[in-house]
């Protein structure tokens, strides 16, 4: 059992570019949850505030990505 666990943690998981892009969502959610947990005084405010921040980060990053893609397309 411990060998299987160690194997899972030691070997890399092969993935494609699409899966790579999808992994941005949980990472951004984690950032939003931690940030809002430190900032919100009332714990009941955390879920909504974290979701709003998560959506803002994801849309912002896609916006920057699309902007850079458009810029490079024009320059090419």
């Amino acid at each position, binding site marked *: 059992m411990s060998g299987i666990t160690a194997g899972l943690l030691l070997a*890399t998981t092969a*993935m494609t570019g699409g899966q790579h892009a999808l*992994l941005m969502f949980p*990472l951004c959610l984690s950032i939003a949850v931690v940030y809002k947990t430190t900032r919100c005084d009332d714990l009941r405010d955390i879920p909504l505030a974290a979701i709003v921040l998560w959506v803002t980060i994801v849309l912002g990053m896609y916006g920057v990505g699309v902007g850079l893609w458009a810029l490079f397309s024009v320059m090419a």
Partner: protein
Amino acid sequence: MAKAQEHAAVQMPLAGLLSWILPGLGHLYLGHRARGLILLITICATFWTGIFIGGSAATVNPHSRKAWFIAQLGTGGNTLAAYALTASTLRRLTPAPAEDSPFLGHWLSADVGVHYTGIAGLLNLLVILDAMARADGSGSRESGRAQEVKGGK
């Protein structure tokens, strides 16, 4: 008054140290139980997801990824555990794994793993500072117990 200041002077570094050892532990120590648990689960899940994706040898590696390793050290206990896991297993692998070995990695997965673990470490720096600020009692923040009582009403 002097006693309270003395108490805060002990609590502040202790809360920071506990948060460094395990994310959220400083908050738990200060009585912010729910907040501490949220931080503990979120940061540990982020860190170990990174290890699961990238593999510990390719992800927590102070030789080939020095700057990221410094960021990962923000969550000290997790990073040292992952590093110990890497070191103990690689020591047992003889001969040493080849360049294309799954232990050293698929580059894309290793990069994702490094980002997850590095960001977990950097987020924990925020948690450490927050725990220290709460221990110091600065700003408008109430003590954990006062908040829990208020929240329970």
